[in-house]
């Protein structure tokens, strides 16, 4: 390092640190702004059928709906691709319509989580049926929702 810069050390060092701190703060500000706006638009709430009938959803609001697939409720539409089934928390039920491949672990009587929007006709249009690959296949959210409605049996898992 040259003699001149050594001579200017204290001021330059402070200045240098000021730049670094300013850059850091700017970055934090940008990140905070990004996170906050992203949270505003992109958080998806999880509801059970009981919850969803009580909540006022904005039209078109994306939510997750989870529960058990009701026995004998799975039907294929004529196009062969669309599936309709009923999700229940043993308290309330919601019909779900989904066009796509069902995950490998999708079964009647088992837990499932779907993501989509509630139509004005009360049918839930799922854009995704989620396969969380827990080996017992009981999504945590569904287990908690069932516990809340008092229908959780330990044997169910």
């Amino acid at each position, binding site marked *: 390092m040259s003699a001149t810069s050594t001579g200017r050390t204290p001021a330059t060092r402070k200045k240098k640190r000021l730049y670094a701190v300013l850059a850091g703060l700017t970055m934090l500000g940008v990140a905070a702004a990004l996170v906050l706006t992203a949270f505003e638009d992109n958080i998806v709430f999880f509801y059970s059928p009981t919850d969803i009938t009580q909540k006022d959803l904005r039209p078109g609001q994306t939510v997750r709906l989870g529960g058990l697939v009701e026995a004998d409720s799975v039907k294929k539409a004529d196009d062969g691709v669309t599936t309709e089934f009923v999700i229940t928390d043993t308290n309330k039920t919601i019909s779900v319509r989904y066009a796509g*491949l069902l995950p490998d672990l999708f079964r009647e009587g088992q837990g499932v989580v779907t993501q989509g929007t509630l139509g004005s006709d009360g049918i839930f249009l799922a854009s995704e049926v989620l396969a969380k690959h827990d080996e017992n296949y009981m999504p945590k959210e569904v287990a908690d929702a069932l516990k809340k409605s008092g229908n959780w049996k330990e044997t169910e898992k």
Partner: protein
Amino acid sequence: MIAEIGHFALMLALVVALVQSILPMAGAARGNHSWMATAAPSAIVQFLCTAVAFGCLLYSFSVSDFTVINVAQNSNSLQPMIYKVSSTWGNHEGSMVLWVLILALFGGMVAMFGGNLPPTLKARTLSVQSMVAFGFLLFILATSNPFERLNPPPIDGRDLNPLLQDIGLALHPPMLYVGYVGFSISFSFAIAALIEGKVDAAWARWVRPWTLLAWIFLTAGILLGSWWAYYELGWGGWWYWDPVENASFMPWLVGTALLHSAIVVEKRDALKTWTILLAILTFSLSLIGTFLVRSGVLTSVHAFATDPERGVFILALLVIAIGGSLALYAWRAPALKGGGLFAPISREGSLILNNLLLTTACATVFIGTLYPLLLDAMTGDKISVGPPFFNATFVPLMIPLIIALGFGPMLSWKRSDLKGVVQRLQFALVVAAVVTAIAAYITWGRSIFGAIGLGLSGWLAASVLIEFGSRIGIGRASAGDVLRRAVGLPRAAWGMMLAHLGFAVLAAGATGASVWQDEAIQSIKPGDSITIANYEFTLRNVDNVRGPNYVAQRGVFTVKEDGTLVATLAPERRRYLVQGTDTTESAIYSNGIADLYAVLGEPQGQGRWIAKVYFKPLVPWIWLGGTIMVLGGIVSLTDRRLRVGAPTRKQAPTPASAPAPAE
């Protein structure tokens, strides 16, 4: 008998770890050389003990010894040998043994190859490493003994989770762990340096190869996991921003920042406290990742443990390790001396920008991953934070990173001239503009982000090549001279070029994957076709086939482009007999630029099947780019500077690192 030997070896390792945690540390504090000298042999013994334990477990799995509970629950005699072996770490207990094995491996390697380390630094580093090992060995022995016996033994085992019976996932955990856990050694070096109160260029040179080694494996492990998700889960995605994926990605982001800031410490003796902090944070994020995936707070294929006792134990380890190291940092870091000065526009400045962007990106991933857990714990509200959140936060931070990455390596140390650099990069700007224009033309009306993403990738690739070209004198020297210079260039320079180029390729692949894919889903019978993006997928027939421990239906598709056959795809639906679970095996044809991807869905009756087909342009580049990055790391690791260049620590500060107030 073998299982008992393994159990005993683990206990021995625990005792050795305890001694190694205390004696060398005390020796270093009191200047007792014989105590310090115990560090290296005990690190090697600790490694041998854990290796014996792991070997015994491996043996029990490979011979299907179902008297061991762990084997009975996670393996089956019908599994092919490779999956019997990979079952060893395909469960909670076994994966924790692998964890401590790798901790001990890194300790052992430092003991073996760290001959040129100053004795006190070596003793303290190995001691800290051993403290971490002690905590995890205690965890295994107290809550997760893999060698527990079962009486009477079952006739056959419960089989490994079928989704894990795949070559990608057989290799993914060991790779990922070497990376994840390998950062422990950077952590130990950082803690040792804090205790010593000294960080200098020599320290950075010792730490960098270990960090780089861990980074190489972590990158490879994440890539393997992503590749597995792509072809095994059958959803056609390569990255889901799943909390479990994020758990391994966060240490990668901060570890990458650490790699870069260590360069500044080495070359310019600056950014010391920041580098120490990054080393602590990287391993802390590895620990948090372990907690997230192992405690059962997340539901996923990785969550083996749902035993709350284990979760609490890991949480306690986490609090002690992270809390303790940060407290030590707060206390000791101000004592470290600051180093070289530099202007904002300089190589140092660009590396700071790199660090700020990477750590900020990590912070957004951290918030998106942990906020749902926190909200659930505090209010009981259940939310999920999915890809849209990360696309809105993480991606915008990558754009300035890529732009700056084009300039960074061209800037000189201390003070640089941005105008001159821009001039030298004019050609890269042209490339970026041309690529953007072509991409926009091809994809008109689809998404503007595709053109921007590819333009940025073009910019980065071009500027990396310009920088490398000017180093070896292309355009200035004769061909023979250029070749000589290229051969003589430090391996680290080659490594940097490859890693940055790989990043450009990966960014292009990620862009293509997210904005340009075509897909169709239809119910078809043999003879029917689905056409997407000029490709005609025809289902020929569906056969029943039998594997070692499953039965399957295999559909055969032919794919034609303008009437000529380009590929035959054979996706399967498998049923694994022992657990009665179904899996989907997708079939992929790749020509290096785009993938054709087919999945066979459920049978519909009357000979009809649901089929889903995709056209995925640029997706192969994701793995190609990642592989180039790994290659860059490996090349850089062979740099002679990292092997022989750092034998001695400078005794007195040279005039260059003039006395200066604390940074």
